Structures are given as structure tokens and as C-alpha cells.
């Protein structure tokens, strides 16, 4: 024992030292660190649970949003369809009215043309009868009177009617 240097007071001193250092390390290192690790674990656990809750809420909000979006799309589609239908109907009405108007304008135009033609023809007939009478008088050198005169006028009008 002497040569190995083992000595009771030194052994006791080392035993006491180890006990002391174990206490101090426990007090200043192990307990604070393990507590900190434990707290951090709890906090991380809590954060993860919170994150999970937030994730679920987000998923629910997403679902709501999707549902509302789908509903809105359906409504929009419905509105658009209705508007299309209405527009088509209106277009149809407008077209019908336009056609009718065009028809009317066409008929009126025709009538006007016919009237104007008749009027013109009547004017022409008068002027032509006068001209024919004058021309015939000049040709035959005498003034036409009576039934001859009337016959020539009628003949001229008839020939004009063929033009």
C-alpha cells in the first residue's frame, strides 16, 4: 500500500471530493440542463400541437373557401346562363323587330315607288297627250278638235302605257 501511495486520509479526501463535485454538478449542471431539455420538449410538443390545430383550422378554412368558391362559381355560371338566355331572347326580339321594320319599310317603299310612278305616269300622260296633239296638228296642218282629238290622245296614252 505504501509503494502504491494508497493513504486513508487521501482516499477519504477523494471520496468527499467526489461527493461534493457530484452534488455541485447535479445542482448547477444536470438539473438545470435536464429541466431545460424537459421544458423545451414540452414546449416543442405544445408548439407541434398548436401547429397541428392551426393546420386543421387551415384545412377547414380551405374547405370552406373551396365550398364557397364552388358555390360562387355555380351561381356565377347560373347568372351567366340566365344572362345568355336573356340576351338571346332580347337578340331574338330585336331581330324580329328589325325584320318587321325592314318589311314595313320595304312595303312602304314599294307603295311610295308605285305612287310616285303612277303620279309620274299621270303627269307624263298629260304632257305627252299635249305633245302628241301639238305634233299631230303640226303634221296635218290643222287643229284637232272633237272626237279625233280625243282618239289621238287615247292612242298616245295607250302607247305610253306599254312603255
Amino acid at each position: 500500500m505504501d509503494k502504491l501511495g494508497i493513504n486513508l486520509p487521501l482516499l477519504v479526501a477523494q471520496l468527499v471530493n467526489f461527493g461534493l463535485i457530484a452534488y455541485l454538478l447535479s445542482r448547477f449542471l444536470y438539473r438545470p440542463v435536464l429541466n431545460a431539455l424537459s421544458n423545451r420538449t414540452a414546449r416543442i410538443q405544445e408548439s407541434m400541437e398548436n401547429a397541428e390545430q392551426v393546420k386543421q383550422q387551415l384545412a377547414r378554412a380551405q374547405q370552406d373557401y373551396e365550398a364557397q368558391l364552388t358555390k360562387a362559381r355555380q351561381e356565377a355560371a347560373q347568372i351567366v346562363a340566365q344572362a345568355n338566355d336573356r340576351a338571346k331572347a332580347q337578340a331574338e326580339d330585336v331581330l324580329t323587330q328589325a325584320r318587321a321594320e325592314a318589311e314595313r319599310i320595304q312595303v312602304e317603299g314599294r307603295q311610295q315607288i308605285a305612287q310616285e310612278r303612277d303620279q309620274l305616269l299621270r303627269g307624263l300622260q298629260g304632257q305627252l297627250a299635249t305633245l302628241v296633239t301639238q305634233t299631230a296638228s303640226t303634221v296635218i296642218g290643222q287643229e284637232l278638235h272633237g272626237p279625233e282629238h280625243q282618239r289621238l290622245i287615247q292612242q298616245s296614252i295607250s302607247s305610253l302605257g306599254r312603255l
Partner: protein
Amino acid sequence: MKPRTLITALVVLVVMIGSRLLFPIKVLPEVSVAAEVLGRPAGFPFTNSILMTIVVDILLMLLVIMATRKMALVPRGAQNLWELAVETFYGLGESVDRRNIRRMFTLTATIFTFVLFANMLALVPGVGSVGMCRAREAALINPPAAQSTNEPPVAALTQDEINHDVGASGGACGTYQTADGRTEVATLVPFFRSPSADLNTTLAIALISFFAIEYFGFKDLGIGYLGKFFNIKEGPYIALVGILELISEFVRIMSFTFRLFGNIFAGEVVLAVMAFLVPWLLPLPFYGLEIFVAFMQAFIFAILTIAFINQATTAHHEADAHGGHVEASPVDAAH
């Protein structure tokens, strides 16, 4: 031989011879199995390993208190390092003995931390080599009775005397005159010596480990713990194994003590001899090896304590049922 190998060998040889010539260390530091006494306040043999133990304690506690004084939620720097160390060791202990780690954590973690710091600080240059000259007998822990009361005045030796006497006396510290006129060789007593290179320290930790193992064994299994050692019901073979187990329990004290002491002490001697033979370059790989040994010895001491406590707290039938290995029950890690 390849030219590269030859060149390397030549360089090493040149460094060895050159450093030996340039930086001569004339005397190999004295190798002493026992720690050397620095003084005897109130009759207590205050050794260099005790001084080193105090240094280790103070340094360790300073580092710990500085790191954990203000614990932050998000760890940084030293706090981060200590948290990593504690968590890793806890996890390691859990993997060996999940059931008991909580209650034996302080013990085993302290063994690991203290031994690791003691071993590592022993590698600081100057530890084991810087010291004072004293009479050989005065440095003994248990001095001869006749001289213990009359310590020689070695402190009076001057540097000139020491250098002058080197070679003539064969000692590093020269000689001194005793009260009765004899000429004695003084010895260099290092101020610091690794606590692990002192059997008092290793024996103290081994005893604590041993008593902890037995305490947990009795606490968990009661008087049935003795059934591991005294079992005559299952035949003579098992009875003999029980006796061997009992012997091995006590042998553990020695194995714990001498494993740590032997490794660290041998490491110190190797480093001293290497530094004596070749002061430059050659000790470097041995330093690397010693750092590894320092860590491994601390680790082995702590892990073996955990493993033995696990073994001691496992009932005989329980161990058989699990093929000698106990599945641990989950324990809340939070303290």
C-alpha cells in the same frame, strides 16, 4: 524500400538526433507510482494529485456555472455544448439501462465528467514536468517514521546548485545535505499530477461505484439480491457460479481502480519518456493517442457502472426470461 519511406525515415531520424542535441533533457523525469507530497498542512499529505483535483474541480465548476448561469430557451455557445453532452450521455445511459438511468444519472455522469476532465487536464504541458525539488523521502505519502518529522530543507536549493549537480549526482535536482551531514539526492516533485494517475482517486471512485451497484441491487431486489451469489437450490454448478459472481463483485473494485490508473499513469510515463527521447515531433502522435485514451477511460468507467447497476437490479429469473438481457420499461425522461 520506397524512396518516400526512406526520406520520411531519414527526416524522423534527423529530427530525433537534432532535437536530442539541440534540446537536451539530461535526466529522465522520475517515475513514481504514488503521488508526490507537496506539503503536510496539519499532518495531511497534500499531494500533487490533490492539488490537481482542486484545479479540476474549480475549472469544471467555473465552466459549468458560466454556461448554465443564464439558461436560454434557445441554447448558444457553452450552454449548447453542455446540453449536448448531458443529453448525449443521458441517451447513451438510457440505451444501456432505461429503467435506472434517471436515478443513477448524477453518479455516472459525474464519474464521466470528472474523470474526463482529470484525464484531459493531465495532458496540458507542464503537468507532471514542472515542479519543485524536494528530498525523496519528503515526497513520499507515507514517509519513514524517523524522517517524517524532520523534513530536509530542500526548498533552499538554488537553480545553480541544481544545474551544477546534474550529472555528478545523477539526479535532476542535485543533492542536499541532511542534518546529520549525509549527502542525499533531491527529486523533482511535479506540482500537478493527474488525479487518475493516483490510486487514491481511482480507488475512491471505484468504491463509490461498487457501493452504488450493491445499494441499487439491494434496493431493487431486497434480500433476494443475495440469491445471485448464494444459490444452492439449482445445484452445485449454479452454486459455484454464484460464488464466482460474489468474488467478481469485489474484483470489480480492483479492475475499476487499476484500469483507469494503469491507462492514465502509463500514458503519462509514455509521454514523459517520448519527450525525454525526442523532445520534438515524436510525442505528438502519442498525445493524440492519450486524448483518445482519456476519453475512453472516462467513458468505460461510467458505462460499466451503468451496466453493472443494470445487472444488479435485474432479478435472476427476469434475466433468464430475457436471455440475460432486460427490456427496460419506459421512464419519463423529464426531471
